[in-house]
């Protein structure tokens, strides 16, 4: 399924299933579409690359220093939570492409291994407290 507008969101499932499994990514891009006053129907496809978890975190890194210091620590948690929500809502087989020069960059490819890796990684990585012991 290829769309006009520069950004293509393709899915290996049937469209009906995509619609049913769209989850957080759909609602975030819909909100972004309203923010940028994109009234046409394809804002979901055009802005889908903004819902790539990695890009949310990197954009968050640029926004964070501009946030007032007293709420910065709270805001620091928000971006990873959004990314995690999107990560969990991604069905296997998701693919987000971004045209660049003569190539189609695959910004996000999910085949199941990645999700398992990150979920396991989050669960396993419990030794952070050891660093704080001397302090």
């Amino acid at each position, binding site marked *: 399924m290829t769309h006009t507008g520069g950004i293509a969101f393709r899915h290996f499932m049937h469209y009906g299933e995509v619609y049913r499994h769209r989850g957080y990514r759909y609602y975030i891009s819909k909100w972004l579409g309203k923010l940028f006053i994109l009234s046409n129907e394809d804002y979901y496809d055009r802005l889908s690359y903004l819902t790539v978890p990695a890009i949310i975190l990197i954009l968050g890194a640029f926004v964070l220093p501009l946030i007032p210091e007293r709420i910065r620590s709270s805001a620091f948690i928000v971006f990873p939570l959004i990314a995690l929500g999107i990560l969990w809502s991604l069905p296997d087989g998701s693919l987000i492409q971004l045209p660049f020069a003569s190539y189609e960059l*695959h910004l996000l490819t999910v085949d199941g291994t990645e999700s398992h*890796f990150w979920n396991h990684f989050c669960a396993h990585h419990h030794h952070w407290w050891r660093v704080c012991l001397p302090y």
Partner: protein
Amino acid sequence: MPSILKIWDSKASALAYAGGALGVTFAGDFFTLFFFWEIMAAASTYLIWARRTKESDKAGMRYVLVHFFGGGLLLSGILMHLSSGGSFLIENLEETYTLSNIFILLGVALNSAIPPLHAWLADAYPRATITGAVFMSAFTTKSAVYVFNSSVPWLGDFGMCRSGIMAIYGTVYAVLANDIREILAYQHYESGRVYGQQL
């Protein structure tokens, strides 16, 4: 308004670093992989420099030089792979020891701290900030181990040997170390072994 560089702090770096690591894991092609790979290297360097001691400045410089060198190896390998008609997408590389495969392998091996390319880890991690040490323990080596296993799975036996060496090395040096952050740094070898074996 102050410039972004002046107000850039370790939290922002940590977010960019996490974003880079996520991007590496989910990248479907070599250019995306390289782009996020370098974001990860640059953001993590700031986490070392943010401690603002003479020792961390020097360690950060060594760290960034090693990682940009590793990135250079990876990019060279990717360009050679593409020029020889290889696929632009990340897929299992052919089971041959071509120059491009070796360069890609070396670039990834350096990031995943496979002996003998591991010295940067124990040098840099204990000298980072507290936040930095926590974040650095999570991303660089793990994402590199993932890339290593997804691109060259035919090196399975080598991967298992590597995991064994990393486990022994990490455990022995962690026992000898007397700084808790140094112990954590050596513990990465051991956790790298776990990820390598699982993948």
